[in-house]
């Protein structure tokens, strides 16, 4: 990844932890440009590219800390998830934040624990590189990929995008070729794994057996 800066946004209100993440990503000679925000409303305004951040470039990757007790990392996560084609999110958790699946199954690209950031560089690199495949796609192909991964039928995708079914099929063929993934199932797996779509939707029979989601881990 030489010669290519990677813009990393860390959302954390704990300066010490920010410094540790900075250390883990390497010194000034590394390709990582670290930006820090504390997760308030302006963080979301920036990521939504609303004024005054209309022209701000989104980061390549977001490191989102889940800090106890008054911090609202999980709400920030849910807000970011609402943003169309948001950057990939790596969660920095700690004991007390509950099971990792709360995030990994709902659109986080990875989950690390704050007290061991040795593999942070590896995780960031993997997330960024896997996302770079998406640059081979046009915006339209990206939309088609997302709708396929959400389980929409060709005719539903066509209706949603106001194009013909034949055009959807052409987009599908082309994005399979560009990604080197030859099956619909493979596309779905890829989209889930990089956090483009959350894991789900589950069908009704199954959801009836699901316990209600806990509001939040008691200590976060």
């Amino acid at each position, binding site marked *: 990844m030489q*010669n*290519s*800066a990677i813009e990393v946004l860390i959302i954390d209100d704990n300066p010490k932890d920010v410094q540790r993440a900075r250390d883990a990503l390497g010194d000034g000679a590394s390709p990582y440009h670290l930006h820090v925000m504390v997760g308030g409303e302006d963080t979301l305004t920036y990521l939504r590219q609303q004024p005054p951040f209309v022209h701000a*470039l*989104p980061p*390549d990757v977001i490191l989102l800390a889940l800090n106890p007790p008054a911090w609202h990392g999980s709400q920030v996560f849910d807000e970011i998830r609402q943003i169309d*084609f948001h950057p990939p999110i790596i969660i920095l958790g700690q*004991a*007390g*934040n*509950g*099971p*990792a*699946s709360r995030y*990994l199954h709902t659109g986080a*690209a*990875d*989950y*690390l*624990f704050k*007290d*061991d950031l*040795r*593999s942070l560089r*590896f995780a960031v690199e993997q997330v960024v*590189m*896997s996302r*770079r*495949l*998406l*640059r*081979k*796609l046009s915006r339209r192909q990206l939309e088609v990929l997302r709708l*396929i*991964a959400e*389980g*929409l*039928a060709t005719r539903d995708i066509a209706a949603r995008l106001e194009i013909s079914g034949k055009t959807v099929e052409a987009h599908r063929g082309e994005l399979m070729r560009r990604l*080197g993934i030859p*099956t*619909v*199932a*493979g596309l*779905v*797996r*890829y989209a*889930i*794994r990089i956090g483009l779509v959350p*894991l*789900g*939707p*589950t*069908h009704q*029979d*199954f959801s009836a*057996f*699901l*316990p209600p989601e806990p509001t939040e*881990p*008691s200590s976060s």
Partner: protein
Amino acid sequence: MDDRPRDAQGVRDALRTVAGVNSPAAIIASQHVVAYLKNKSPFEDAVPADLILLAVNPPGHHGRGTLAQIRSVAHHPPVIILSRVTDGPASRYLDTGASDYMMKDDLSQLAHAVRRVMAARIPLNAVTPRQIEVLELIGKGLKTQEIAARLRVSNKTVEAHRASLMGRLGIDSVAGLVHYAIRADLVELDPPPAEKVTSARPARRRALSA
């Protein structure tokens, strides 16, 4: 599976709140797990496990190795990792087949995680073992021809199984089957493919999407 009695007791306490869960059927050391799952000596009479809680303890923890062994057993139960060490990204475990990953020192959500994992398996009671095999192979991203070759049946038979799976599970798309296969831990998610060529960063025209 835990070699620390005190930790095992903590898990027992945390599970007590889950309706319908018997206290752990067995607590065994990791090197015995394959024998246990295959009912080999000395576990001929072992009760089949519905769920494995795999503790990852220092020193010399073998979490990923043990997980790989469990995955080598056909139709193995789902696995929740209980970690005392932070052993790299959690995706390392979830990508290699664990259903969930939690820190041991906070078991307050263990009951919820267990119920979630068990609930995801319930719909499988409605399908045949053969259909589960087909679902696994669909979930791995194989083409119809590849599934047919693997199972030594015709393409038509695979398609019939797929249609039947969708009907019985109430899922109306291949994508939905893939989501479900992952959710029910029939397949793992690989680390995603990545662009191999490293080149100078292109202009960020499409930065939003990348």
